[in-house]
């Protein structure tokens, strides 16, 4: 059998962002993989030590577009922990709504791309069109479709008044039946989807734990860790989050976890809108942040996002460090890809919901 090396990237039609893969191939089969990163390393962690804590809120939201709400949320939670700030209840509920609306849009984007890679363009268009309902909702509620600018230290800077609550519920009522009655059954039963995604890109639960994997990738292998229930923040402890798992650890299972998590996100948003208490949106004026250190975690659309913050009593943070879930997923590609076919590489890469700007910062 003929062996050869195949370069993929850094600029490639199946990659949305630049990453270089050197893939060893034997015949049609992947025998090994080496990843070279660093093409979009922007030094953002370094920049956070050159900006004050308030400016950093805007900078950190721009690490990544799809999970842009998770970064400022974890960052604010860290500063609130250091300063002992109590976030008002209404703001806690609104934070969950912002979190879940981003999760819904992010997960739908990933499964839409899966359909595109499979070549099922009508399904790709259908999922993207349904996702537009969430995009429109974000634009109406937050004034922006991607970077919501929802969080401030000590609360939120958006509100959902009674008439807007009715609008958001109407939007959820539009999306849910499309998702439950049309999109999910298609992913569950369509032979084009199943033949290209079942039994492909396999990784088991123990390997997920060994590689430190989180989020839908790990849950697609039966590892039921979700920060929203394992280490609840905001008001997730009152919402009884359903942690979605699938046992098989293939491309299809990861997609199904993401789709079912959109349904769960809709349920959580409905619950928050129903229970939304009256009260202030923030704890008060711009707070003073004393010296201290804190660690916070949130469940970003791709899994656990962890922040470490250290302050020294000035308005410039001594250190801000974070790790996104995609960071570990890259390394695990060697498990998912080796033994697979060349034609499956784009599907497997997409199944980790890769975010290179998040990984490299």
């Amino acid at each position, binding site marked *: 059998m003929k062996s050869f090396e195949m370069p993929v990237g850094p600029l490639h039609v199946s990659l949305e962002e630049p990453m270089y893969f050197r893939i060893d191939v034997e015949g049609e089969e992947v025998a090994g993989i080496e990843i070279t*990163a*660093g093409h979009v*390393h922007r*030094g953002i962690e*370094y*920049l956070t030590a*050159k900006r004050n804590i308030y400016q950093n809120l805007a900078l950190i939201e721009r690490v990544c577009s799809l999970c842009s709400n998770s970064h400022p949320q974890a960052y604010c939670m860290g500063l609130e922990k250091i300063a002992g700030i109590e976030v008002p209840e209404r703001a806690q509920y609104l934070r969950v709504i912002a979190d879940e609306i981003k999760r819904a849009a992010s997960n739908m984007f990933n499964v839409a791309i899966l359909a595109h890679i499979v070549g099922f363009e009508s399904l790709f268009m259908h999922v993207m069109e349904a996702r537009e309902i969430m995009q429109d909702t974000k634009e109406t509620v937050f004034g922006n479709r991607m970077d919501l600018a929802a969080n401030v230290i000590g609360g939120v800077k958006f509100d959902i008044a009674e008439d807007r609550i009715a609008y958001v519920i109407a939007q959820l009522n539009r999306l849910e039946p499309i998702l439950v009655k049309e999109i999910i059954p298609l992913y569950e039963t369509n032979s084009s989807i199943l033949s290209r995604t079942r039994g492909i890109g396999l990784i088991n639960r123990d390997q997920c*734990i*060994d*590689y*430190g994997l989180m989020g839908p990738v790990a849950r697609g292998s039966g590892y039921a860790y979700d*920060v929203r229930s*394992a*280490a*609840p*923040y905001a008001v997730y*402890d009152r919402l009884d989050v359903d942690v979605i798992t699938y046992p098989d650890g293939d491309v299809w299972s990861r997609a199904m976890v993401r789709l079912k998590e959109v349904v769960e996100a809709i349920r959580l948003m409905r619950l928050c809108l129903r229970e939304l208490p009256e009260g202030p949106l923030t704890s008060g004026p711009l707070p003073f942040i004393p010296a201290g250190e*804190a*660690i916070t*975690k949130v469940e970003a659309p791709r899994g*656990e996002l*962890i922040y*470490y913050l*250290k302050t020294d009593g000035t308005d410039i943070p*001594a*250190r801000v*460090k*974070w*790790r996104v879930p995609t*960071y*570990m997923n*890259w*390394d695990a590609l060697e498990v998912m890809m080796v033994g697979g076919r060349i034609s499956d590489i784009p599907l497997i890469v997409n199944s980790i919901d890769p975010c290179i700007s998040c990984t*490299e910062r």
Partner: protein
Amino acid sequence: MNEASDIIDLVASVARTIPGEFSFNEDKHGRVTAWITLQNSTDLVAAARALKAIGARLSMITALSDQPESINTIAYHFDIDGSTVTLKVGVEPGGSVETIVPLFRNADWHEREFMELYDLHVSGRANSRRLFLDETIDRRVMQRLIPLSVLSNAASTTMLFEKLIVDREKSR
């Protein structure tokens, strides 16, 4: 799921076996944040092994306090059922710690990243290929860079203006 008191007992049992400082707090959801600062960086692997034995997984590694004269700190953040344990070790600039990759596979990228961004070394690694920065770029390069926004803000404009004034005076 372990109770907070169980987590505290487990982590305290690890901290007792290794010289260093131990502190913790508990949040309103019953999750613990524990800090162990090791007296000797040579105890790192033993401490990491002990944490693994009580069910910890590695979440992240942070290098900090990167001043030329000071001691660098490397903080290893672990998760146990949603609670966080941070293991801190002090390392001289240019100093070394032992790898924990044999214990935690996902430490590989973290170690490679802090080696290239800080003047720190990790011993016992099979492969220390650069992660993000090219081999031709010096370690700690970020500490020598000036953000474009600083170069182009009002401060540099004043400097430029003063330089022009001086040059004009000289030319007279």
